[in-house]
């Protein structure tokens, strides 16, 4: 037997094994293919409403961010520790006039304590 005979026999075997798909399955597949894809908002709504892991993860991240913001805002801004200069310090008496001028910024003129 040569190679051409092998191919022919294999083709015949495949043909005999072929079973047509059921009509109902074909119809379902066609219906699904014709159905328009859901919009982005629709998919988001489904995610948000559902009990999916995504929804729980997003909720946890939102809560963590909220707590982080509250903690950052509540952290007291302490004045510099006495006698300790964190950044390089220069004596005012030796400062050039321009360095002194650069210290001032626009202000609202308010008369309040620091929050």
């Amino acid at each position, binding site marked *: 037997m040569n190679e051409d005979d092998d191919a022919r026999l294999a083709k015949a075997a495949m043909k005999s094994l072929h079973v047509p798909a059921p009509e109902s399955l074909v119809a379902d597949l066609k219906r699904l293919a014709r159905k328009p894809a859901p919009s982005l908002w629709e998919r988001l709504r489904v995610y948000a409403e559902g009990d999916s892991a995504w929804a729980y993860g997003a909720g946890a991240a939102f809560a963590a961010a909220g707590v982080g913001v509250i903690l950052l805002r509540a952290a007291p801004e302490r004045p510099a520790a*006495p006698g300790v*200069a964190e950044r390089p310090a220069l*004596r*005012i008496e*030796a400062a050039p*006039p321009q360095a002194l001028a650069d210290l*001032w910024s626009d202000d609202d*003129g308010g008369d309040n304590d*620091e929050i």
Partner: protein
Amino acid sequence: MTRYKLAVLLVLAALPLQAKPRTARPGADALILKALAGPATGYAAVERVQVFLPGKKPKALKVNVTALPSGRVRREVLPLRKKAASLVEVRDPERPEAGLARLRSVYAISVSTGGVVAKRKTWKLELRLKSGVLRRAWWVDRDSGLLMKRETYRDDGTLRRRERIVKLELPAPAPASFKLAPVAGPWSPEGFAFAGGGGGTRRFTNGLESYEVAEAGGKLVVTGDLAEDDAARVLEAHGK
């Protein structure tokens, strides 16, 4: 009069007896001495200095103030740019009696209730020129004597400058000493530095305001943006 009315009257009459007694208003001299001496403990504060130039937007800067129980004060002005060096000055307090004598020579002083500054109850001192013009107002902490707020006014009554403690920790832990010591040399108001001179004139500035010390007719004269008591102290310092 029924018994009921009599009882109500008695209750009303007794109410003032239950009221908290008011703190007696201190005398102006005693209060100034207390303010010039400063608190007996160390403290840490954030001070906001505002300057109101006519026809311009107000300008401000922030100062971190720390003080030792001895009265030595370290003032650190933080620059706007994060990496820039901060500017520091260290000063010892003047003898309170000398400060009082100078203020008394320039101003008539009165005391009134000052309200609350940085959550501290204060007395208010009004310092008026002999002409009646209000030049300065000081708010002094009732307990410690710390100067919580200072305002300086122009001749027309408009606000020229405000220095206010906006955050205070008193008492605060203090080191034995600061790294820097006070600079020897003629006194200048807080934040001012020598900016140059010539021809017998010396100019000082804080970057926004300035004053000059000049010699005219064999006498020293101070001109510029200073209240009368500061000008007098500058003259004393340069005359030494």
